[in-house]
């Protein structure tokens, strides 16, 4: 599918080609899941990747580029992994649309690269055989060739090329082998005629499909693609978006089905039967498998990993490791970043005159940037683990083990890891939901991940529990304080499961899809591919979420600084800060929302702190410190202040244990993290649809927070527990 262009005058003598060397070559990559397609994609494109979404759907779109051996620019679009072109999911639907050039973006591929797994060639050939019939040049990368060899599988590649009629390049993507021949093959393929179906349909079938095929060619498909679609449609029950505009399509399909039934065929499995029959012949001629069905390493590992008792134990241990890593390994790195940013901010600030500009740069900009960068260690660590688990093949086993439990609330087995990571930080947790294929399951998981008590809530819990919960011992070393902390974590978890169940029954209602999970053989992932994947995620976070967080940090800084009021310079610095905050825009917001928080037992000072911490929860403690005039760093003094603070009018104590618990419940439920909002917008689909779901998430969590805090405070007071 190359367009003919007038030959450009060249200075050199080799201007025989009609193709300008700098014309962009578009390659679409498709393949079964677990073939190492991503590894190959990463090997070809390195870090030159752009991640977005396919228009109008939540399917992720990754495009990368590289230079061919002749200097030509090649752009590669990674299509979602599919077992066949028959759309079972939005992912596969998108792939089909792009390949038929009926997608919303009109990204027309010049060559299709099919990544096939040499170890599972039979199954991979199903998709390959469909793609070959599309009327586009095709190249097959026979990946994991080394694994096939080590298992004693011998593939006669030249014979296979002959049988399929397309160029085939053996590759070992994780070691970067075969890449150069592959690149050459892609460029050459673009100049060759398109391949054709290599088997013939029985005459009866061909006749029965003729009207349907004609109908499709009339609608604009090439003859070859129409033939492929006609056969494929026999097994598809529903109407598909990319063919919605074809007139009389359903009618023709039904006719073809009826005709075939009359002739004794079972239409819905006809495609599978015909293709696999042909594939069996091809396999016979080209592939020799070892005779003995020996139990290979993967089987032996699975006996342990999927063991009824050992399996879950191993899983829990692994999850504990991941959790611990995200929670504590990241901590020194995060502290390091904070110190570094602080030092840089300080160094810059020292060169500036005191005043608002200095404050803006140091507190607003550096502070804002710091609050963004500080997430990177957690994101990097979590994604490193997730990628490791996925590429090694363990993730499928984990999903299998967790599936039953997750399904009781209507979630997916793969929802477990994002939710677990939410205990450390919701930001990487939300990003991790991309491994969930079903869009409704994915959205439901995104909606509830922030309810898992993240580490940013810890300072709030610590402050309030430390001030108001007595240290009475309960059992086995557990104190009332510890139990309260645990209670808060449990509250968040239970709420997450309940809300997920509700979402799946209402807004995100969808059929409970039975699990069909491929358990790929275990393998050692490529370190390079891992690095590229993690770097890509971090890059994405920095670009999207980072800009939002930085902007909002500056806005908040402005609200806390302006309008400036005249303060008595003779007062101590902390008191000056207190008055400053009180009269600023943020302070006024606090006063304005006081009526809203009074039913919860709070005054305007807590109101301001809550308002400020909507950007980031940790801000609560420092804002409280400022408001109570003890400075933002002095927690001991703040604790004392909280315990003794009395309401000027009623003479009663402002903070009682009841108020404190209610406040903690508020923090369990409320979404107070613009970083989470930013990633939710992106993972829920970006643009309008992303903002819609982020708003729903924020709203329901705020409602829960207010409601929960009110129940605790009002209920407790009614029961006489106040004071």
């Amino acid at each position, binding site marked *: 599918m190359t367009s003919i262009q007038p030959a450009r005058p060249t200075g050199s003598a080799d201007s025989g080609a009609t193709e300008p060397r700098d014309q962009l070559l578009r390659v679409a990559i498709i393949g079964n899941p677990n073939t190492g397609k991503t590894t190959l994609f990463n090997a070809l494109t390195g870090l030159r990747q752009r991640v977005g979404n396919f228009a109008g759907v939540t399917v992720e779109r990754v495009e990368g580029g590289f230079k061919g051996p002749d200097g030509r620019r090649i752009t590669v679009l990674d299509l979602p992994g599919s077992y*066949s072109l028959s759309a*079972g999911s939005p992912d596969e639907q998108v792939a089909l649309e792009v390949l038929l050039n009926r997608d919303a973006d009109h990204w027309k591929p010049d060559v299709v690269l099919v990544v096939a797994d040499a170890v599972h060639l039979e199954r991979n050939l199903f998709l390959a055989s469909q793609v070959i019939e599309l009327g586009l040049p095709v190249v097959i990368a026979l990946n994991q060739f080394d694994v096939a060899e080590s298992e004693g599988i011998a593939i006669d590649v030249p014979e296979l090329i002959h049988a399929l009629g397309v160029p085939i390049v053996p590759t070992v993507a994780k070691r970067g082998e075969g890449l150069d021949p592959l690149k050459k093959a892609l460029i050459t393929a673009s100049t060759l005629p398109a391949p054709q179906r290599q088997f013939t349909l029985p005459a009866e079938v061909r006749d029965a499909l003729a009207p349907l095929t004609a109908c499709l060619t009339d609608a604009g498909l090439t003859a070859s693609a129409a033939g492929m679609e006609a056969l494929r449609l026999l097994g598809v029950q529903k109407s598909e978006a990319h063919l919605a505009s074809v007139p009389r399509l359903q009618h023709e399909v039904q006719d073809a089905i009826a005709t075939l039934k009359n002739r004794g065929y079972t239409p*819905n*499995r006809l495609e*599978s039967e015909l293709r696999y029959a042909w594939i069996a012949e091809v396999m016979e001629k080209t592939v020799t498998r070892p005779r003995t069905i020996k139990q290979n390493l993967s089987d032996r590992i699975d006996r342990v990993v999927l063991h009824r008792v050992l399996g879950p134990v191993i899983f829990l241990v692994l999850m504990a490791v991941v959790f611990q890593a995200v929670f504590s390994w990241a901590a020194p790195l995060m502290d390091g970043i904070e110190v570094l940013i602080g030092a840089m901010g300080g160094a810059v600030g020292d060169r500036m005159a005191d005043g608002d500009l200095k404050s803006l740069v140091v507190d607003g900009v550096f502070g804002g940037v710091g609050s963004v960068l500080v997430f990177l260690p957690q994101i990097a660590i979590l994604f490193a683990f997730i990628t490791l688990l996925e590429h090694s093949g363990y993730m*499928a086993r984990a999903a299998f083990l967790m599936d039953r439990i997750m399904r009781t609330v209507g979630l997916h087995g793969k929802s477990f890891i994002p939710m677990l990571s939410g205990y450390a930080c919701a930001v990487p947790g939300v990003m991790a939901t991309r491994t969930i294929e079903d869009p409704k399951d994915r959205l439901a998981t995104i909606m509830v991940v922030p309810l898992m008590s993240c580490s940013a809530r810890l300072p709030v819990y610590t402050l309030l529990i430390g001030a108001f919960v007595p240290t009475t011992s309960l059992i086995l070393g557990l104190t009332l304080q510890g139990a309260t902390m645990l209670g808060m974590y449990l509250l968040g978890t239970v709420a997450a499961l309940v809300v997920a169940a509700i979402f799946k029954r209402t807004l995100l209602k969808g059929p409970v899809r039975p699990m069909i999970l491929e358990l790929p053989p275990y393998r050692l992932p490529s370190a390079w591919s891992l690095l590229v994947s993690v770097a890509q995620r971090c890059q994405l976070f920095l670009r999207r979420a980072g800009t939002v967080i930085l902007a909002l940090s500056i806005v908040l800084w402005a609200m806390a600084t302006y309008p400036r009021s005249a303060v008595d310079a003779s007062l101590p610095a902390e008191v000056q800060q207190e008055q400053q905050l009180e009269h600023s825009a943020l302070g006024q917001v606090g006063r304005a929302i006081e009526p809203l928080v009074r039913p919860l037992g709070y005054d305007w000072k807590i109101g301001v702190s809550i308002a400020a911490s909507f950007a980031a929860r940790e801000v609560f403690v420092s804002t409280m410190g400022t408001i109570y005039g003890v400075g933002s760093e002095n927690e001991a003094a703040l604790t004392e202040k909280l315990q003794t603070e009395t309401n000027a009018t009623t003479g009663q104590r402002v903070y009682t244990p009841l108020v404190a618990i209610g406040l903690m419940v508020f923090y369990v439920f409320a979404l107070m993290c613009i970083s989470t909002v930013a990633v939710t917008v992106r993972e829920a689909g970006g643009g309008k649809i992303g903002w819609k779901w982020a708003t729903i998430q924020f709203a329901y969590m705020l409602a829960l927070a207010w409601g929960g805090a009110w129940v605790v405070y009002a209920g407790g007071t009614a029961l006489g527990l106040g004071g």
Partner: protein
Amino acid sequence: MVDIECSGDEACRLRALGFCEGTAVNIIDARDAMLLEVRGTRLALGSALTAGITVQPVAARA
């Protein structure tokens, strides 16, 4: 030997995997979810599906 009853999307995917009536499958573990092997691919099928699948034993290949 196999007989399958399941809804459109899943049936589609199973057929693409080469899993349809008349295919030889190798059952690894049959609990509430089923683990089996078809055409060299190891699959785990959820209980909702396995309820609709009937398998007949075939004489072991020599």
